[in-house]
């Protein structure tokens, strides 16, 4: 398999009046063609920002990508001109957003909105685009597509709108799909359906997926690899089964322990991670998880741990792992 996306030392900062918010502070990862990567972490850890940075959708001001490289099929997306990146967006790399209720334009029919990417990138005329939109609507499981193509977004439920978003994102057969918490805002019963649709369609098209979520259950079922983010950095990454089954970073361990599991006896108590995530303006000098870590050592407070291998293709950034 070829490497589709290489993110190298990506840094995205927000310049606010209170100071510089280091939302993404030097993350690196690779994504192979057709692979699904789960990007996990709690709210505000920089998952979404790192994904938006790939497509250069960070609002500037206040945000700015201050460093790093994002190599997509060998070309650095961060060095492209505005016209070049527009040609990538929606065509080679597509995105699904968290809020299906607000990611569709309320005054345009859904047919027109799905057709927009087709017109922009595939240069289809109105008739052809309409045919293609109908086909897409059927694929994502919208019943009665002929009638619903001319409906407005407010006539759809949240789950249906997210299907529309999936159709829109996959309309140009992208090589990479970034799904930013695609199921967070919909009912639990719908979540599984949507994830199945995404999984099935992307595997059929050979599309690689970056699935951003804070739902570890979703990750375990649907991704090949996972990366755990904390305070703007990746603290652990590796094959999903390894990270899930044998977490090596104290944060990952804590994260897994704080999720209720149906396969465990009920009397076991959930273990929360004590404390709060650090202020991204004043990051600690050493390990950013130091103040909350139960396994911390003295030197963790002033040495920032690097990602180091802890198993086959399994990496963790913890000073403790190598103490014997």
């Amino acid at each position, binding site marked *: 398999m070829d490497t589709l996306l290489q993110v190298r030392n990506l840094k995205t900062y927000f310049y606010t009046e209170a100071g510089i918010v280091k939302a993404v502070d030097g993350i690196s990862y690779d994504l192979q063609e057709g692979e699904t990567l789960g990007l996990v972490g709690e709210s505000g850890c920089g998952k979404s920002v790192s994904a938006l940075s790939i497509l250069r959708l960070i609002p500037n001001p206040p945000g700015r990508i201050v460093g790093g490289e994002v190599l997509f099929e060998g070309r650095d997306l961060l060095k492209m001109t505005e016209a070049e990146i527009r040609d990538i*967006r*929606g065509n080679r790399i597509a995105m699904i957003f968290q*809020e299906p209720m607000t990611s569709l334009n309320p005054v345009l029919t859904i047919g027109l909105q799905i057709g927009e990417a087709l017109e922009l990138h595939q240069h289809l005329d109105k008739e052809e685009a309409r045919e293609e939109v109908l086909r897409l609507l059927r694929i994502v499981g919208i019943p009665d597509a002929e009638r619903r193509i001319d409906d407005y977004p407010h006539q759809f439920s949240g789950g249906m709108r997210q299907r529309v978003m999936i159709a829109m994102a996959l309309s140009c057969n992208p090589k990479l799909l970034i799904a930013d918490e695609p199921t967070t805002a919909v009912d639990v019963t719908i979540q599984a359906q949507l994830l199945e649709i995404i999984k099935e369609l992307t595997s059929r098209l050979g599309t690689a997926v970056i699935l951003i979520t804070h739902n570890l259950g979703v990750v375990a079922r649907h991704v090949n690899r996972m990366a755990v983010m904390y305070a703007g950095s990746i603290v652990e990454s590796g094959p999903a089964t390894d990270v899930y089954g044998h977490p090596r970073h104290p944060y990952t361990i804590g994260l897994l322990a704080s999720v209720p599991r149906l396969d465990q006896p009920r009397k076991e108590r959930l273990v929360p991670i004590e404390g709060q995530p650090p202020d991204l303006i004043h990051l600690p000098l050493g390990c950013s998880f130091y103040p909350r870590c139960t396994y911390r050592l003295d030197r963790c407070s002033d040495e920032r741990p690097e990602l180091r291998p802890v198993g086959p293709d399994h990496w963790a950034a913890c000073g403790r792992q190598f103490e014997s």
Partner: protein
Amino acid sequence: MQESLKKIEARERGPFKEVFHRLSRRTTALIGLIIVLVFLISALFAPLLSPHDPLEHNLAYKLAIPSWDYLLGRDELGRCILSRIIYGARISLLIGIIVISIGVLVGVPLGVISAYYGGKVDFVVQRFVDTMLAFPGILLALMLIAMLGVGLHNVMIAVGISTIPIYARLARSAVLAIKARQFVEAAKSIGSSNLRIILQHLLPNSLSPIIVQSTLHMATAILWAAGLGFLGLGVNPPTPEWGAMLNGGRLYIRVASHVATFPGLMIFITVLGFNLLGDGLRDALDPRLKT
């Protein structure tokens, strides 16, 4: 049950029918709509509707009181007042449309660009708008007429220019609110250009305040045009124009009050009609009142 049926019914309609439906449920808005429609029809079909030639004078019958033949009587030169009022609607409509077009066509793009690009662009445009707003509108109009000369065209240009900052402000605030919505980000994520985002996504969503403002402005424009016509700064005689007619009848108000009363009444009713319609539209387009 009844409630949910209504909702389903509302869903089945498109957004335009839905707005019309909500508009038609308000009596005052409906009255406004009817007045505006009558006004538009008289303006468009003036030659068919007016019983006499508005310019044909007959001094033998000057200041004649209303009769079956001349429903609203005759003016100081013996011209049919009803016909002149009907033809006058054309001038008022024309003035309204041109004034609003100037305001909308210049003001809205300024406001949209200002809001969308932000930063320095926003600063420059907004200071320009502030400067224009600091001038009293009627003074600006009089100044422009002093520069450009008296005449209908100049009145329209003058009043039109003075409305630009209002539309620029309005469009800016509407776009600022919409620009932050996720569908704009989604549009960027599929590779839409800035121009496309502005035309497809930002403009259609910021239209409702602009439509409401234009309707209300139509009333203001008619009033301004009549005011300037009354002062003798508008159309040249003998063109029938409401403000000028009012001024012509002013001298005879003691002996023949109908000459000034009917044009004045027309101005009043038309302005009221546009204001009622504008208020009704504002309510009908208010997203918070949607069921």
